[in-house]
């Protein structure tokens, strides 16, 4: 059996959707209930900056990957005489 590598991106995308929903919840709480002061704005700023950094480095590390490659999984071993 073989799968294309970009199937992994679908799984990643589904997890990111869940994550993004939780991020919106977190930002809503801070904007709606947080005090209007430097700490609140700095915390939100730091939170978003780190997210952007993680997203950027993820992109940089995955850029050279050939997502159209086919990967064989559960392949039958050819060296075993019993098969």
């Amino acid at each position, binding site marked *: 059996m073989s799968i294309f*590598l970009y199937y*992994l*991106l679908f*799984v*990643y995308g589904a*997890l*990111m959707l869940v*994550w993004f929903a*939780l*991020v919106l*919840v*977190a930002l809503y*709480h*801070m*904007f*709606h*209930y*947080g*005090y*209007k*002061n430097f*700490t*609140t704005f700095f*915390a939100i700023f730091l*939170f978003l900056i*780190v*997210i952007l950094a*993680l*997203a950027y480095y*993820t992109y940089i*590390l*995955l850029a050279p*990957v*050939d*997502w159209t*490659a086919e*990967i064989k999984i559960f392949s039958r071993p050819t060296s075993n005489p019993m098969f």
Partner: protein
Amino acid sequence: MLSAYRLPNFSPNEKIIKIVRRDLIILLGRLLYGAVLIVLPLVLLALGLFYNPAWLSSPLIYPVLVLSASVYFLFIWLFIFFQFIDYYLDLWIITSERIIDIQQYGFFSRVIAEQRLYRIQDVASETHGFWATIFRYGEVYVQTAGEKQRFTFYQIPNPDDIRNTIIQLAEISKKKQYKIANPAVNANLASVLDQNL
């Protein structure tokens, strides 16, 4: 967002005396837990790559590693941010008229309770445990005559000072209420009562 001067039911003569949050050491403890969750997988990943450098050139393992690490660290960062939100949005506000208890429970639960200072009957402070004693944080229990009979300040810094502040403010508020309720009391009697109170 809440402005410091736009509290619910804020009256013009009301002044904010103190805004109290949990002690900073509580937040640092939670952040330390998050830091461990970040550092530990990095160490394991480094060890794995050290003993298996072929992972970096594998067409399957490398993207799986990167995607897994991306998901993991994004969720951990979000978890750390939620820890901060849980710490930051829980607060107690002591004003010249009342105490307000604002507590965030989870994502979609928020409780705000307030009590007038003149209804306070008893205030007690407690400090238990090694770390609480070293870093001087603890609980303050405020017994009131209202519907919510007990207000609790959890893990706040210098609970003894907060207790003293609330007691003093409660006494002042009770005097004011007594004068409001008894305007016909003559000036001499009022000053005698002031001294005794």
